[in-house]
Protein backbone atom coordinates (compact mmCIF):
# COMPACT_ATOMS: atom_id res chain seq x y z
CA UNK A 1 0.00 0.00 0.00
CA UNK A 2 2.69 2.46 1.07
CA UNK A 3 4.89 1.54 -1.91
CA UNK A 4 1.96 2.19 -4.21
CA UNK A 5 1.30 5.55 -2.56
CA UNK A 6 4.99 6.40 -2.92
CA UNK A 7 4.91 5.59 -6.62
CA UNK A 8 1.86 7.82 -7.06
CA UNK A 9 3.48 10.64 -5.12
CA UNK A 10 6.69 10.42 -7.15
CA UNK A 11 4.88 10.87 -10.44
CA UNK A 12 4.78 14.55 -11.23
CA UNK A 13 1.31 15.69 -12.15
CA UNK A 14 2.28 19.05 -13.52
CA UNK A 15 5.05 18.10 -15.93
CA UNK A 16 4.59 16.90 -19.42
CA UNK A 17 5.46 13.22 -19.39
CA UNK A 18 5.77 11.57 -22.74
CA UNK A 19 3.94 12.46 -25.93
CA UNK A 20 1.34 9.84 -26.84
CA UNK A 21 2.36 7.61 -29.73
CA UNK A 22 1.02 8.72 -33.11
CA UNK A 23 -1.48 6.14 -34.35
CA UNK A 24 -3.02 8.20 -37.08
CA UNK A 25 -1.67 11.36 -38.61
CA UNK A 26 -3.73 14.48 -38.20
CA UNK A 27 -5.72 15.74 -41.14
CA UNK A 28 -4.12 18.64 -42.93
CA UNK A 29 -5.77 21.92 -43.66
CA UNK A 30 -5.96 22.09 -47.48
CA UNK A 31 -5.26 25.81 -47.50
CA UNK A 32 -2.46 26.17 -44.97
CA UNK A 33 -1.26 22.53 -45.10
CA UNK A 34 -0.98 22.66 -41.30
CA UNK A 35 -2.19 19.72 -39.23
CA UNK A 36 -5.68 20.25 -37.80
CA UNK A 37 -6.35 19.01 -34.27
CA UNK A 38 -9.37 16.75 -33.70
CA UNK A 39 -10.88 19.21 -31.30
CA UNK A 40 -12.92 21.95 -32.89
CA UNK A 41 -13.80 24.26 -30.06
CA UNK A 42 -11.03 24.05 -27.57
CA UNK A 43 -11.99 25.79 -24.34
CA UNK A 44 -9.12 26.97 -22.20
CA UNK A 45 -9.93 27.48 -18.54
CA UNK A 46 -8.01 28.93 -15.60
CA UNK A 47 -4.33 28.10 -15.51
CA UNK A 48 -3.54 28.91 -11.90
CA UNK A 49 -5.28 29.54 -8.58
CA UNK A 50 -6.00 33.23 -8.12
CA UNK A 51 -5.27 34.79 -4.73
CA UNK A 52 -7.63 37.77 -4.96
CA UNK A 53 -10.43 35.66 -6.40
CA UNK A 54 -10.06 33.25 -3.49
CA UNK A 55 -10.18 36.21 -1.12
CA UNK A 56 -13.46 37.29 -2.68
CA UNK A 57 -15.10 33.89 -2.49
CA UNK A 58 -13.73 33.02 0.98
CA UNK A 59 -14.19 36.28 2.82
CA UNK A 60 -15.59 39.21 0.89
CA UNK A 61 -18.67 37.56 -0.54
CA UNK A 62 -20.03 36.59 2.88
CA UNK A 63 -19.18 39.94 4.40
CA UNK A 64 -20.76 41.89 1.58
CA UNK A 65 -23.93 39.87 1.82
CA UNK A 66 -24.21 40.67 5.54
CA UNK A 67 -23.41 44.34 4.91
CA UNK A 68 -25.81 44.89 2.04
CA UNK A 69 -28.64 42.71 3.28
CA UNK A 70 -31.86 44.58 3.93
CA UNK A 71 -34.61 42.76 5.74
CA UNK A 72 -37.81 42.62 3.75
CA UNK A 73 -39.84 44.12 6.56
CA UNK A 74 -37.49 47.12 6.59
CA UNK A 75 -38.00 47.85 2.91
CA UNK A 76 -40.33 50.77 2.15
CA UNK A 77 -43.52 49.71 0.48
CA UNK A 78 -43.55 50.46 -3.23
CA UNK A 79 -45.99 53.22 -4.12
CA UNK A 80 -48.44 51.99 -6.70
CA UNK A 81 -48.19 54.54 -9.48
CA UNK A 82 -51.11 53.35 -11.57
CA UNK A 83 -53.63 50.56 -11.75
CA UNK A 84 -51.97 47.22 -12.19
CA UNK A 85 -52.64 45.54 -15.47
CA UNK A 86 -54.90 42.55 -14.97
CA UNK A 87 -55.16 40.44 -18.15
CA UNK A 88 -58.16 38.58 -16.73
CA UNK A 89 -60.14 41.77 -16.52
CA UNK A 90 -62.51 41.76 -19.52
CA UNK A 91 -61.78 45.44 -20.10
CA UNK A 92 -58.02 45.01 -20.19
CA UNK A 93 -58.08 41.81 -22.22
CA UNK A 94 -56.33 42.19 -25.57
CA UNK A 95 -55.60 45.82 -24.87
CA UNK A 96 -52.14 47.32 -25.04
CA UNK A 97 -50.36 47.49 -21.68
CA UNK A 98 -48.41 50.73 -21.89
CA UNK A 99 -45.13 50.98 -20.00
CA UNK A 100 -44.78 53.45 -17.16
CA UNK A 101 -43.93 56.86 -18.54
CA UNK A 102 -40.79 58.81 -17.83
CA UNK A 103 -37.22 57.78 -17.37
CA UNK A 104 -36.82 55.04 -14.81
CA UNK A 105 -33.09 55.68 -14.40
CA UNK A 106 -32.29 56.27 -10.76
CA UNK A 107 -35.77 55.34 -9.57
CA UNK A 108 -35.63 51.58 -9.45
CA UNK A 109 -34.92 50.19 -5.99
CA UNK A 110 -32.03 47.79 -5.57
CA UNK A 111 -32.91 44.14 -6.08
CA UNK A 112 -33.13 41.94 -2.98
CA UNK A 113 -29.84 40.57 -1.71
CA UNK A 114 -29.77 36.81 -2.06
CA UNK A 115 -26.84 34.39 -1.68
CA UNK A 116 -26.79 33.94 -5.46
CA UNK A 117 -26.86 37.64 -6.16
CA UNK A 118 -24.23 39.10 -3.85
CA UNK A 119 -22.36 42.01 -5.40
CA UNK A 120 -19.35 40.86 -7.40
CA UNK A 121 -16.86 42.25 -9.88
CA UNK A 122 -17.90 41.51 -13.47
CA UNK A 123 -15.06 43.09 -15.43
CA UNK A 124 -12.42 45.77 -15.38
CA UNK A 125 -12.03 48.11 -18.29
CA UNK A 126 -8.77 49.96 -18.79
CA UNK A 127 -8.88 52.86 -21.17
CA UNK A 128 -6.17 55.23 -22.42
CA UNK A 129 -6.60 58.17 -24.71
CA UNK A 130 -3.58 59.05 -26.84
CA UNK A 131 -3.95 62.56 -28.18
CA UNK A 132 -0.95 62.29 -30.50
CA UNK A 133 -2.67 59.43 -32.30
CA UNK A 134 -4.96 61.97 -33.99
CA UNK A 135 -1.98 63.31 -35.90
CA UNK A 136 -0.35 59.99 -36.60
CA UNK A 137 -1.86 56.65 -35.71
CA UNK A 138 1.63 55.21 -35.23
CA UNK A 139 1.62 56.93 -31.85
CA UNK A 140 -0.93 54.37 -30.64
CA UNK A 141 1.60 51.57 -30.75
CA UNK A 142 3.42 52.32 -27.45
CA UNK A 143 0.06 52.55 -25.67
CA UNK A 144 -1.04 49.23 -27.15
CA UNK A 145 2.19 47.57 -26.10
CA UNK A 146 2.07 49.07 -22.61
CA UNK A 147 -1.50 47.89 -22.02
CA UNK A 148 -0.59 44.51 -23.44
CA UNK A 149 2.33 44.23 -21.04
CA UNK A 150 0.05 45.26 -18.17
CA UNK A 151 -2.70 42.80 -18.84
CA UNK A 152 -1.25 40.06 -21.05
CA UNK A 153 -4.37 40.15 -23.21
CA UNK A 154 -4.23 39.60 -26.96
CA UNK A 155 -6.97 38.97 -29.50
CA UNK A 156 -8.23 35.40 -28.85
CA UNK A 157 -4.89 34.74 -27.17
CA UNK A 158 -4.30 31.35 -25.58
CA UNK A 159 -7.33 29.82 -27.26
CA UNK A 160 -9.84 32.04 -25.41
CA UNK A 161 -12.24 32.85 -28.22
CA UNK A 162 -14.26 35.35 -26.23
CA UNK A 163 -11.18 37.45 -25.57
CA UNK A 164 -11.28 40.64 -27.60
CA UNK A 165 -7.75 41.58 -26.67
CA UNK A 166 -6.70 45.19 -26.83
CA UNK A 167 -9.16 47.24 -28.82
CA UNK A 168 -8.63 50.52 -30.57
CA UNK A 169 -11.10 53.25 -29.65
CA UNK A 170 -12.20 55.39 -32.55
CA UNK A 171 -13.73 58.83 -32.37
CA UNK A 172 -17.50 58.84 -32.69
CA UNK A 173 -18.23 62.52 -33.00
CA UNK A 174 -16.77 65.28 -35.04
CA UNK A 175 -15.11 67.97 -32.96
CA UNK A 176 -14.53 71.13 -34.95
CA UNK A 177 -11.05 71.25 -36.49
CA UNK A 178 -9.75 68.52 -34.25
CA UNK A 179 -11.53 65.17 -34.51
CA UNK A 180 -13.33 63.36 -37.26
CA UNK A 181 -15.46 60.24 -36.73
CA UNK A 182 -13.47 57.05 -37.21
CA UNK A 183 -10.10 58.48 -36.23
CA UNK A 184 -8.32 56.20 -33.72
CA UNK A 185 -7.87 58.09 -30.46
CA UNK A 186 -7.14 55.51 -27.80
CA UNK A 187 -6.94 51.91 -26.67
CA UNK A 188 -9.00 49.92 -24.22
CA UNK A 189 -9.09 46.40 -22.85
CA UNK A 190 -11.71 44.42 -20.97
CA UNK A 191 -10.47 42.08 -18.28
CA UNK A 192 -12.53 39.25 -16.87
CA UNK A 193 -11.99 36.34 -14.52
CA UNK A 194 -8.55 35.67 -13.01
CA UNK A 195 -6.83 38.23 -15.27
CA UNK A 196 -9.10 40.89 -13.78
CA UNK A 197 -8.28 39.90 -10.20
CA UNK A 198 -4.56 39.67 -11.02
CA UNK A 199 -4.58 43.19 -12.40
CA UNK A 200 -6.39 44.42 -9.29
CA UNK A 201 -3.82 42.72 -7.07
CA UNK A 202 -0.93 44.32 -8.94
CA UNK A 203 -2.59 47.72 -8.74
CA UNK A 204 -3.16 47.47 -5.01
CA UNK A 205 0.15 45.87 -4.05
CA UNK A 206 2.62 47.68 -6.31
CA UNK A 207 1.14 50.82 -7.81
CA UNK A 208 -1.14 52.66 -5.37
CA UNK A 209 1.30 52.55 -2.42
CA UNK A 210 4.03 54.09 -4.57
CA UNK A 211 2.08 57.01 -6.03
CA UNK A 212 3.38 60.21 -4.47
CA UNK A 213 0.97 62.07 -2.14
CA UNK A 214 -1.88 59.69 -2.79
CA UNK A 215 -4.25 59.41 0.17
CA UNK A 216 -6.98 57.56 -1.76
CA UNK A 217 -9.57 58.15 -4.43
CA UNK A 218 -11.79 61.06 -3.46
CA UNK A 219 -15.44 60.25 -2.85
CA UNK A 220 -18.11 62.55 -4.26
CA UNK A 221 -19.57 64.99 -1.70
CA UNK A 222 -22.44 63.76 0.42
CA UNK A 223 -24.73 66.27 -1.26
CA UNK A 224 -24.30 64.67 -4.70
CA UNK A 225 -27.39 63.21 -6.31
CA UNK A 226 -28.33 59.65 -5.45
CA UNK A 227 -30.44 59.28 -8.59
CA UNK A 228 -27.84 60.17 -11.20
CA UNK A 229 -26.94 57.49 -13.76
CA UNK A 230 -23.46 57.50 -12.25
CA UNK A 231 -24.72 56.71 -8.75
CA UNK A 232 -27.05 53.89 -9.78
CA UNK A 233 -24.83 52.13 -12.32
CA UNK A 234 -22.64 50.11 -9.98
CA UNK A 235 -19.41 51.14 -11.69
CA UNK A 236 -16.45 52.53 -9.77
CA UNK A 237 -14.17 54.62 -11.98
CA UNK A 238 -10.90 56.31 -11.27
CA UNK A 239 -7.87 57.53 -13.16
CA UNK A 240 -4.15 57.01 -12.81
CA UNK A 241 -1.59 59.65 -13.80
CA UNK A 242 1.08 58.81 -16.41
CA UNK A 243 3.71 58.54 -13.65
CA UNK A 244 1.78 55.64 -12.10
CA UNK A 245 2.24 53.42 -15.14
CA UNK A 246 5.95 53.12 -14.39
CA UNK A 247 5.10 51.53 -11.04
CA UNK A 248 3.56 48.43 -12.60
CA UNK A 249 6.27 45.74 -12.38
CA UNK A 250 5.48 44.62 -15.93
CA UNK A 251 6.37 48.09 -17.23
CA UNK A 252 9.09 48.87 -14.71
CA UNK A 253 11.28 45.99 -15.85
CA UNK A 254 11.90 47.58 -19.26
CA UNK A 255 10.55 51.10 -18.99
CA UNK A 256 13.11 52.33 -21.55
CA UNK A 257 11.29 50.44 -24.30
CA UNK A 258 8.37 52.86 -24.13
CA UNK A 259 8.76 56.35 -25.57
CA UNK A 260 6.48 57.77 -22.86
CA UNK A 261 4.19 56.73 -20.05
CA UNK A 262 0.42 56.88 -20.37
CA UNK A 263 -2.26 57.68 -17.87
CA UNK A 264 -5.34 55.50 -17.79
CA UNK A 265 -8.94 55.33 -16.74
CA UNK A 266 -9.93 52.22 -14.85
CA UNK A 267 -13.57 51.21 -14.61
CA UNK A 268 -14.46 48.48 -12.13
CA UNK A 269 -17.80 47.15 -13.34
CA UNK A 270 -19.89 45.29 -10.78
CA UNK A 271 -23.28 43.62 -11.03
CA UNK A 272 -24.90 46.13 -8.65
CA UNK A 273 -27.95 47.98 -9.96
CA UNK A 274 -30.62 50.21 -8.55
CA UNK A 275 -30.51 52.87 -5.87
CA UNK A 276 -27.21 53.03 -4.00
CA UNK A 277 -25.46 50.75 -6.49
CA UNK A 278 -22.27 52.75 -6.58
CA UNK A 279 -22.00 52.80 -2.80
CA UNK A 280 -22.30 49.04 -2.73
CA UNK A 281 -19.75 48.79 -5.52
CA UNK A 282 -17.36 50.95 -3.48
CA UNK A 283 -17.86 48.68 -0.49
CA UNK A 284 -16.81 45.75 -2.68
CA UNK A 285 -13.85 47.58 -4.16
CA UNK A 286 -12.59 48.76 -0.79
CA UNK A 287 -12.65 45.09 0.21
CA UNK A 288 -9.90 44.66 -2.36
CA UNK A 289 -7.98 47.36 -0.43
CA UNK A 290 -8.48 50.24 -2.84
CA UNK A 291 -8.56 53.32 -0.58
CA UNK A 292 -11.27 55.98 -0.69
CA UNK A 293 -11.27 59.24 1.23
CA UNK A 294 -13.69 62.07 1.80
CA UNK A 295 -12.61 65.50 0.78
Amino acid at each position, binding site marked *: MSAQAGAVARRNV*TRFGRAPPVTKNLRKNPRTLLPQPHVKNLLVRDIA*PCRIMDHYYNTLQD*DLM*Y*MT*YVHQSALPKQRQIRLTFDPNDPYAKNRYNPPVGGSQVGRKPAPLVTPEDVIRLERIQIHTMVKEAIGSRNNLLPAIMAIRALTGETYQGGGRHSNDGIQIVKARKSVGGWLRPGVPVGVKVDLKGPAMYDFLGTLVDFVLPRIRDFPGFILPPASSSVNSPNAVSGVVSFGLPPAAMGFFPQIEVNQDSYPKMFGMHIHLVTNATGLGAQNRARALVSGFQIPFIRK
Partner: protein
Amino acid sequence: MFSRNLLTSCRAPSKDVSCLRRALATEASLGSSTTATSTPPPASSKRSTRPKITTAIILNRSPTLTRTPTPFERAYYAYQARIRRALHNPFPYEFYFKQGSLLETRFNIEEAERERLAFGKDFTGEVVTSEKEEANKRAVAQLSQQEGEGEVIMPRTHESDIKKDFKSLDRKGARNLYLLLRVNHDGKQVWRFPQGGVEKGELLHQAAQRDLFAECGPHMDTWIVSRNPVGVSKSPSEATKDGQEDITFFYKAHIMAGQVRPTQASVSDFAWLTKEEIESHVSKDYWEDIKDMLSRH
Protein backbone atom coordinates in the same frame (compact mmCIF):
# COMPACT_ATOMS: atom_id res chain seq x y z
CA MET B 1 -25.06 26.92 2.69
CA PHE B 2 -24.79 29.22 5.65
CA SER B 3 -25.96 32.20 3.74
CA ARG B 4 -29.09 30.44 2.60
CA ASN B 5 -29.74 29.38 6.15
CA LEU B 6 -29.40 32.96 7.28
CA LEU B 7 -31.72 34.33 4.68
CA THR B 8 -34.43 31.80 5.24
CA SER B 9 -34.30 32.45 8.93
CA CYS B 10 -34.50 36.18 8.39
CA ARG B 11 -37.27 36.00 5.86
CA ALA B 12 -39.50 34.02 8.17
CA PRO B 13 -42.10 35.98 10.15
CA SER B 14 -40.77 36.71 13.58
CA LYS B 15 -43.69 35.03 15.32
CA ASP B 16 -42.97 31.69 13.70
CA VAL B 17 -40.09 30.51 15.83
CA SER B 18 -40.14 26.88 14.75
CA CYS B 19 -37.82 27.65 11.87
CA LEU B 20 -35.24 29.36 14.03
CA ARG B 21 -33.79 26.23 15.47
CA ARG B 22 -33.56 22.85 13.87
CA ALA B 23 -33.22 20.89 17.06
CA LEU B 24 -36.42 22.22 18.52
CA ALA B 25 -38.12 18.83 18.44
CA THR B 26 -35.62 17.31 20.82
CA GLU B 27 -35.78 20.40 22.99
CA ALA B 28 -39.54 20.07 23.20
CA SER B 29 -39.37 16.49 24.42
CA LEU B 30 -36.77 17.48 26.98
CA GLY B 31 -38.88 20.38 28.11
CA SER B 32 -42.02 18.28 28.39
CA SER B 33 -40.26 15.82 30.70
CA THR B 34 -39.29 18.63 33.04
CA THR B 35 -42.58 20.41 32.85
CA ALA B 36 -44.44 17.20 33.54
CA THR B 37 -43.15 17.24 37.10
CA SER B 38 -43.36 20.96 37.71
CA THR B 39 -45.97 22.60 35.57
CA PRO B 40 -45.38 26.34 35.19
CA PRO B 41 -48.05 28.47 36.78
CA PRO B 42 -50.65 29.31 34.16
CA ALA B 43 -50.98 32.83 35.46
CA SER B 44 -47.32 33.63 34.70
CA SER B 45 -46.91 37.32 34.02
CA LYS B 46 -45.91 38.60 30.60
CA ARG B 47 -42.60 39.76 31.98
CA SER B 48 -41.29 36.30 32.85
CA THR B 49 -42.01 34.87 29.37
CA ARG B 50 -40.09 37.64 27.67
CA PRO B 51 -37.07 35.94 26.09
CA LYS B 52 -33.58 36.60 27.34
CA ILE B 53 -31.56 38.07 24.48
CA THR B 54 -27.85 37.47 24.15
CA THR B 55 -25.37 38.50 21.48
CA ALA B 56 -22.47 36.27 20.50
CA ILE B 57 -19.56 37.28 18.30
CA ILE B 58 -17.97 34.95 15.79
CA LEU B 59 -14.52 36.51 15.74
CA ASN B 60 -12.77 35.39 12.59
CA ARG B 61 -9.19 35.46 11.45
CA SER B 62 -9.33 35.30 7.65
CA PRO B 63 -6.86 33.14 5.73
CA THR B 64 -3.43 34.73 5.42
CA LEU B 65 -2.03 32.18 2.97
CA THR B 66 -3.32 30.91 -0.33
CA ARG B 67 -4.88 27.49 -0.28
CA THR B 68 -2.71 24.57 -1.34
CA PRO B 69 -4.19 23.14 -4.54
CA THR B 70 -4.99 19.43 -4.57
CA PRO B 71 -2.98 17.16 -6.92
CA PHE B 72 -6.00 17.06 -9.22
CA GLU B 73 -6.17 20.85 -9.33
CA ARG B 74 -2.46 21.11 -10.02
CA ALA B 75 -2.69 18.62 -12.86
CA TYR B 76 -5.70 20.48 -14.25
CA TYR B 77 -3.98 23.85 -14.10
CA ALA B 78 -0.82 22.45 -15.68
CA TYR B 79 -2.85 20.93 -18.50
CA GLN B 80 -4.75 24.15 -19.16
CA ALA B 81 -1.55 26.20 -18.99
CA ARG B 82 0.01 23.86 -21.55
CA ILE B 83 -2.88 24.39 -23.94
CA ARG B 84 -2.77 28.12 -23.46
CA ARG B 85 0.97 28.16 -24.08
CA ALA B 86 0.55 26.14 -27.24
CA LEU B 87 -2.12 28.51 -28.55
CA HIS B 88 -0.65 31.85 -27.49
CA ASN B 89 -0.21 34.67 -29.95
CA PRO B 90 3.32 35.50 -31.12
CA PHE B 91 5.30 37.57 -28.65
CA PRO B 92 6.82 40.77 -30.08
CA TYR B 93 10.39 40.41 -28.82
CA GLU B 94 11.66 43.26 -30.96
CA PHE B 95 9.44 45.81 -29.22
CA TYR B 96 10.02 44.83 -25.63
CA PHE B 97 13.76 44.01 -25.77
CA LYS B 98 16.77 45.65 -27.32
CA GLN B 99 18.51 43.20 -29.60
CA GLY B 100 21.06 41.15 -27.65
CA SER B 101 20.36 42.84 -24.29
CA LEU B 102 20.85 41.04 -21.01
CA LEU B 103 17.16 41.32 -20.32
CA GLU B 104 16.36 39.49 -23.54
CA THR B 105 18.89 36.78 -22.74
CA ARG B 106 17.35 36.24 -19.36
CA PHE B 107 13.86 36.17 -20.82
CA ASN B 108 14.94 33.60 -23.43
CA ILE B 109 16.52 31.34 -20.82
CA GLU B 110 13.44 31.53 -18.57
CA GLU B 111 11.12 30.98 -21.52
CA ALA B 112 13.09 27.92 -22.66
CA GLU B 113 12.79 26.50 -19.16
CA ARG B 114 9.03 27.10 -19.14
CA GLU B 115 8.69 25.47 -22.57
CA ARG B 116 10.68 22.48 -21.33
CA LEU B 117 8.40 22.12 -18.31
CA ALA B 118 5.30 22.39 -20.47
CA PHE B 119 6.21 20.28 -23.47
CA GLY B 120 9.02 18.01 -22.29
CA LYS B 121 12.75 18.09 -22.83
CA ASP B 122 12.55 17.00 -26.47
CA PHE B 123 10.81 20.25 -27.32
CA THR B 124 13.52 22.68 -28.39
CA GLY B 125 13.14 26.12 -29.80
CA GLU B 126 16.20 28.05 -30.88
CA VAL B 127 19.45 26.06 -30.86
CA VAL B 128 22.26 27.79 -28.94
CA THR B 129 25.86 26.60 -28.80
CA SER B 130 26.98 25.31 -25.43
CA GLU B 131 29.63 28.04 -25.03
CA LYS B 132 27.14 30.75 -25.71
CA GLU B 133 24.67 29.11 -23.32
CA GLU B 134 27.25 29.03 -20.52
CA ALA B 135 28.10 32.69 -21.07
CA ASN B 136 24.41 33.59 -21.06
CA LYS B 137 23.80 31.73 -17.83
CA ARG B 138 26.73 33.46 -16.12
CA ALA B 139 25.53 36.88 -17.23
CA VAL B 140 22.02 36.21 -16.03
CA ALA B 141 23.26 34.91 -12.69
CA GLN B 142 25.21 38.13 -12.26
CA LEU B 143 22.12 40.17 -13.10
CA SER B 144 19.97 38.33 -10.63
CA GLN B 145 22.64 38.76 -7.95
CA GLN B 146 22.68 42.50 -8.59
CA GLU B 147 18.91 42.64 -8.28
CA GLY B 148 19.01 40.78 -4.97
CA GLU B 149 16.99 37.79 -6.09
CA GLY B 150 17.03 34.43 -4.44
CA GLU B 151 15.62 35.52 -1.11
CA VAL B 152 14.43 32.74 1.12
CA ILE B 153 10.67 32.33 1.00
CA MET B 154 8.86 32.02 4.31
CA PRO B 155 7.66 28.49 5.06
CA ARG B 156 3.95 27.77 4.79
CA THR B 157 3.81 26.08 8.18
CA HIS B 158 4.32 28.37 11.14
CA GLU B 159 6.07 27.16 14.28
CA SER B 160 2.76 27.40 16.12
CA ASP B 161 1.50 24.65 13.77
CA ILE B 162 4.33 22.40 14.86
CA LYS B 163 3.96 23.26 18.55
CA LYS B 164 0.15 22.98 18.34
CA ASP B 165 -0.22 26.41 19.90
CA PHE B 166 -3.95 27.01 19.67
CA LYS B 167 -3.61 30.54 21.01
CA SER B 168 -1.47 31.77 18.15
CA LEU B 169 -3.06 33.82 15.39
CA ASP B 170 -0.38 32.58 12.97
CA ARG B 171 -1.48 28.96 13.01
CA LYS B 172 -3.23 27.34 10.02
CA GLY B 173 -2.52 30.21 7.64
CA ALA B 174 -4.66 28.86 4.81
CA ARG B 175 -7.78 28.41 6.92
CA ASN B 176 -10.41 30.56 8.58
CA LEU B 177 -9.90 30.57 12.34
CA TYR B 178 -12.55 31.40 14.93
CA LEU B 179 -12.16 32.45 18.54
CA LEU B 180 -13.57 30.12 21.17
CA LEU B 181 -13.52 30.85 24.91
CA ARG B 182 -13.55 28.26 27.69
CA VAL B 183 -15.82 29.46 30.45
CA ASN B 184 -17.23 28.13 33.67
CA HIS B 185 -20.91 27.44 33.05
CA ASP B 186 -22.86 25.94 35.98
CA GLY B 187 -19.69 24.42 37.39
CA LYS B 188 -18.75 22.89 34.06
CA GLN B 189 -16.07 24.08 31.68
CA VAL B 190 -17.59 24.67 28.24
CA TRP B 191 -16.25 26.16 25.04
CA ARG B 192 -18.31 28.87 23.37
CA PHE B 193 -18.01 32.07 21.35
CA PRO B 194 -17.62 35.37 23.22
CA GLN B 195 -21.08 36.49 24.28
CA GLY B 196 -22.99 38.73 26.63
CA GLY B 197 -26.34 40.27 27.41
CA VAL B 198 -28.10 43.27 25.95
CA GLU B 199 -28.69 46.27 28.18
CA LYS B 200 -31.89 48.26 28.15
CA GLY B 201 -32.09 50.70 25.25
CA GLU B 202 -29.03 49.23 23.60
CA LEU B 203 -28.98 48.10 19.99
CA LEU B 204 -27.89 44.56 19.20
CA HIS B 205 -24.75 45.44 17.27
CA GLN B 206 -23.69 47.88 20.00
CA ALA B 207 -24.18 45.17 22.57
CA ALA B 208 -22.08 42.80 20.46
CA GLN B 209 -19.21 45.28 20.39
CA ARG B 210 -19.39 45.89 24.14
CA ASP B 211 -19.64 42.20 24.98
CA LEU B 212 -16.66 41.36 22.82
CA PHE B 213 -14.45 43.88 24.61
CA ALA B 214 -15.85 42.88 28.00
CA GLU B 215 -14.79 39.26 27.57
CA CYS B 216 -11.71 39.50 25.39
CA GLY B 217 -10.07 42.72 26.55
CA PRO B 218 -9.32 45.91 24.66
CA HIS B 219 -5.96 44.79 23.25
CA MET B 220 -7.16 43.96 19.76
CA ASP B 221 -8.44 45.72 16.66
CA THR B 222 -11.71 44.20 15.53
CA TRP B 223 -14.41 45.06 13.07
CA ILE B 224 -17.98 43.82 13.36
CA VAL B 225 -19.00 43.23 9.78
CA SER B 226 -22.64 44.18 9.78
CA ARG B 227 -25.38 45.60 11.91
CA ASN B 228 -27.44 42.58 10.93
CA PRO B 229 -26.88 39.40 12.88
CA VAL B 230 -25.64 36.53 10.72
CA GLY B 231 -27.56 33.87 12.58
CA VAL B 232 -29.70 33.10 15.56
CA SER B 233 -30.13 30.21 17.94
CA LYS B 234 -32.89 29.62 20.38
CA SER B 235 -33.02 27.40 23.39
CA PRO B 236 -34.96 27.30 26.66
CA SER B 237 -32.90 28.74 29.46
CA GLU B 238 -31.69 26.16 31.96
CA ALA B 239 -31.23 28.71 34.70
CA THR B 240 -34.88 29.59 35.01
CA LYS B 241 -37.16 26.65 34.36
CA ASP B 242 -40.19 28.86 33.88
CA GLY B 243 -40.18 28.54 30.12
CA GLN B 244 -38.16 31.67 29.54
CA GLU B 245 -36.41 31.41 26.22
CA ASP B 246 -32.80 32.20 25.56
CA ILE B 247 -32.26 33.77 22.13
CA THR B 248 -28.70 34.30 20.91
CA PHE B 249 -27.93 36.52 17.94
CA PHE B 250 -24.59 35.84 16.26
CA TYR B 251 -22.50 38.62 14.75
CA LYS B 252 -19.53 38.12 12.47
CA ALA B 253 -16.38 40.09 13.23
CA HIS B 254 -12.82 40.15 11.92
CA ILE B 255 -9.67 40.55 13.95
CA MET B 256 -7.16 42.90 12.34
CA ALA B 257 -4.42 43.14 14.96
CA GLY B 258 -3.68 42.39 18.59
CA GLN B 259 -4.61 39.39 20.61
CA VAL B 260 -7.24 38.26 23.09
CA ARG B 261 -6.50 38.93 26.76
CA PRO B 262 -9.40 37.61 28.81
CA THR B 263 -10.38 40.08 31.49
CA GLN B 264 -12.94 38.10 33.46
CA ALA B 265 -12.12 35.35 35.90
CA SER B 266 -14.84 33.15 34.42
CA VAL B 267 -12.92 32.89 31.15
CA SER B 268 -10.23 30.31 31.81
CA ASP B 269 -8.85 29.79 28.31
CA PHE B 270 -9.20 30.73 24.67
CA ALA B 271 -8.30 29.13 21.34
CA TRP B 272 -8.26 29.99 17.64
CA LEU B 273 -9.79 27.00 15.89
CA THR B 274 -10.86 25.86 12.45
CA LYS B 275 -14.36 24.60 11.77
CA GLU B 276 -13.49 20.94 12.30
CA GLU B 277 -11.64 21.67 15.52
CA ILE B 278 -14.61 23.63 16.84
CA GLU B 279 -16.85 20.59 16.37
CA SER B 280 -14.68 18.54 18.70
CA HIS B 281 -14.63 21.28 21.35
CA VAL B 282 -18.27 22.34 21.69
CA SER B 283 -21.38 20.47 22.76
CA LYS B 284 -23.55 18.79 20.19
CA ASP B 285 -26.47 21.22 20.53
CA TYR B 286 -24.19 24.22 20.24
CA TRP B 287 -22.55 22.72 17.15
CA GLU B 288 -25.92 22.24 15.46
CA ASP B 289 -26.64 25.92 16.06
CA ILE B 290 -23.37 27.31 14.77
CA LYS B 291 -22.10 24.90 12.15
CA ASP B 292 -23.71 26.66 9.18
CA MET B 293 -22.27 30.03 10.20
CA LEU B 294 -18.66 28.88 9.84
CA SER B 295 -16.65 28.74 6.66
CA ARG B 296 -15.36 25.37 5.55
CA HIS B 297 -12.35 27.03 3.91
